[in-house]
């Protein structure tokens, strides 16, 4: 008989007014007992709707059954069949719109805490597994991977396991993509990402950092001169958008990418960091996605009073629900249904306020969400000395502009078929570079699919 508790076992966390002053991880993870108990809430329904809600179809009820039995390594092996980054996905996946949204328990009460269990299993494995990864026998084929985000890392890992000689080219000085430069330490400790990269290296993958493909080497050079038979492009969607309103170039206006990169990649939150960051007293963050929540919560931890300004309502906030809840608990102010029209500066061009206008929801737009429209005459000023623009990102045009015959969409996304194959022979792409800003799990899934397709293409030859 299943455990019929209506609620998920609660995730132990740092107290809100403690954690909003430090960068240590917010959620502390289930204990063994909590995990085993939560696992017994699964009904093992024959249709397994949760599996279809997972972009990579992790065999969820099977791994949960192993957890319930206390066989945590067994549970890990089940997840590993479908996912390469469970410690990451267990922390950052929007489970409430994926697996957990399909859970039968969720119809009347809270769904099974699938994400929390995944995280527990992955952490348990990372702590207890002793087996070092074995480098497989080389199969004599070379593949290049561009970008070391979840898409690139997954593709590289899957190919390396099959014996391919894989080199990952990364523009920045560390590997990990958004996992290291975007998502903050308190949500995803960098040691977890580093562990994944170390595992790849142990499998024989070469990680070449400081390599901006398109500048130092082109895809054509990789294939024609360096002997790579196939290329996977996992270069993400890193180009920040601005609003094009007056005052956006004042001192104290950041893109979320810049603000987060300074903090996460360059460790500007540490007092002895060589990289500076403005410690605003009152920070306004514009946007409502995960990126906006991360920027707001980082600013809070640097000591600011933080306001999120979003043009739609709470319902439409695209961020993971847990991040919104955590942000609210941490004392972040939400000014919903408001939109900035101008950033105000003082005589020295420092930000000293942001003029906004109130919005109301009108008819649904193309995305199905009700379109926000301005309320005439409702302008007001938000008091702030720093503004962070978290409005979304698009793919960087560098690869396209340096690769002959690589087709892209109008908005910059690389055109790829369901296998990840682009308009160029043996050139594959996946992740945010193809879809635009999406999720870690989708990027990982695309990396997996492309790895299988590359293997088929090269082995078929």
């Amino acid at each position, binding site marked *: 008989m299943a455990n019929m508790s209506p609620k998920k076992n609660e995730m132990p966390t740092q107290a809100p007014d403690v954690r909003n002053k430090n960068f240590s991880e917010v959620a502390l993870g289930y204990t063994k007992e909590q995990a085993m108990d939560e696992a017994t809430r699964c009904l093992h329904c024959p249709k397994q709707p949760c599996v279809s809600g997972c972009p990579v179809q992790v065999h969820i009820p099977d791994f949960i059954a192993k957890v319930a039995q206390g066989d945590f390594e067994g549970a890990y092996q089940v997840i590993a069949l479908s996912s390469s980054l469970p410690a990451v996905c267990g922390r950052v996946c929007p489970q409430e719109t994926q697996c957990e949204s399909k859970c039968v328990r969720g119809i009347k009460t809270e769904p099974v805490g699938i994400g929390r269990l995944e995280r527990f299993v992955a952490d348990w494995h990372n702590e207890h597994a002793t087996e070092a990864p074995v480098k497989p026998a080389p199969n004599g084929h070379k593949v290049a991977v561009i970008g070391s985000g979840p898409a690139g890392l997954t593709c590289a890992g899957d190919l390396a396991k099959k014996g391919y000689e894989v080199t990952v080219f990364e*523009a*920045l*000085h560390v590997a990990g993509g958004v996992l290291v430069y975007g998502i903050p330490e308190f949500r995803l400790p960098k040691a977890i990402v580093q562990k994944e990269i170390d595992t790849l290296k142990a499998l024989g993958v070469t990680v070449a*950092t*400081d*390599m*901006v493909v398109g*500048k*130092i*080497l082109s895809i054509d050079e990789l294939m024609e001169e360096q002997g790579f038979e196939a290329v996977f492009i996992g270069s993400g969607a*890193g*180009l*920040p958008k*601005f609003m*094009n309103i007056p005052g*956006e*170039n*004042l*001192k*104290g206006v*950041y*893109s979320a*990418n*810049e603000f987060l*990169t*300074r903090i996460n*990649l*360059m460790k500007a939150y540490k007092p002895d*960091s*060589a*990289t*500076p960051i*403005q410690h605003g007293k009152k920070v306004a963050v514009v946007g409502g996605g995960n990126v906006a929540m991360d920027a707001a919560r980082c600013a809070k931890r640097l000591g600011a009073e933080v306001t999120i300004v979003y043009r739609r309502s709470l319902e439409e906030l695209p961020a993971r629900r847990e991040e919104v809840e955590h942000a609210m608990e941490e004392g972040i102010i939400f000014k919903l249904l408001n939109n900035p029209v101008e950033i105000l500066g003082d005589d*020295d*061009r420092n930000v000293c306020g942001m003029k906004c206008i109130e919005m109301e929801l009108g008819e649904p737009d193309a995305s199905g969400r009700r379109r926000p429209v301005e309320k005439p005459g409702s302008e007001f000023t938000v008091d702030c000395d720093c503004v962070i623009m978290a409005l979304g990102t698009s793919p*960087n*045009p*560098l690869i396209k502009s340096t690769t002959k015959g690589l087709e892209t969409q109008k908005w910059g996304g690389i055109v790829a078929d369901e296998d990840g194959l682009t308009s160029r022979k043996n050139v594959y792409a996946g992740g945010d570079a193809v879809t635009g800003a999406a999720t870690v799990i989708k990027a990982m899934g695309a990396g997996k699919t492309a790895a299988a397709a590359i293997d088929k293409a090269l082995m078929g030859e």
Partner: protein
Amino acid sequence: MFKIVKKRVLNPTVTQMDISAPLVAKKAEPGQFIILRVDDEGERIPLTIADYDREAGTVSIIFQVVGATTEKLNHLNEGDSLADFVGPLGNATETEGYRKVAVVGGGVGCAIALPVAKKFHECGAEVTSIVGFRNKDLVILEEEFKACSTKFVMMTDDGSYGTKGMVTNALEELIKEGEQFDLVIAIGPLIMMKFVCALTKKYGVKTVVSMNPIMIDGTGMCGGCRLTVGGKVKFACVDGPDFDGHEVDFDEAMARAAMYKPFERHAYEEACNLFAKEVK
């Protein structure tokens, strides 16, 4: 790791280093830049490529000690290595199709102006180089400039060498004398580039400037390097670093460049104290 193969002190505060980076050297063109980190804790700083040797696989950088990072860099010697050296970034300077070019360099900016002057010279343009320094002790690369210039003008603020005055004085004089430049390239402090542009605008001479704002990634990812050019937002690292000088909003660029001044001063003092302690 990227090895320092050669270190040359150009003047008391300006140093040249040749860095072993064969792949960067293979692709580098005048006007492009690199981003480096001195060590694993270091910040990322952009420096324009001063020279390159494709055969030897080296890229030269020339820097002035202005803050903690350049101070640390300056303490390294031949045989030491840099943690990171990324490039070549940005677009190369357009050097084709010009007959008569004035290359105007100010201070350490001359280090960046030199490869551009050389390239124009190679492309067959007649090059007039006008270089300015605060005083005689700070003069760098004089012989190198002379070698690729048809005309060479040296200016110092205090008149301790060459002619006393600003580069703009020299440029205006030449234009008034009837020199018909089809392009002026100005590379140096923002304030110098601003005044050169104000001058050439008056005379209707096309002017290109090389912008070097605060950067992090150098690939278009952060937007920290943004400028207003012709009323539009441009990212210096991918849209530049060269821009039409008559379109650049220099006042905004100067304000943005000063964004971290207090932090930088503090970090610089700390670095100096640290090195002073080590010496003791």
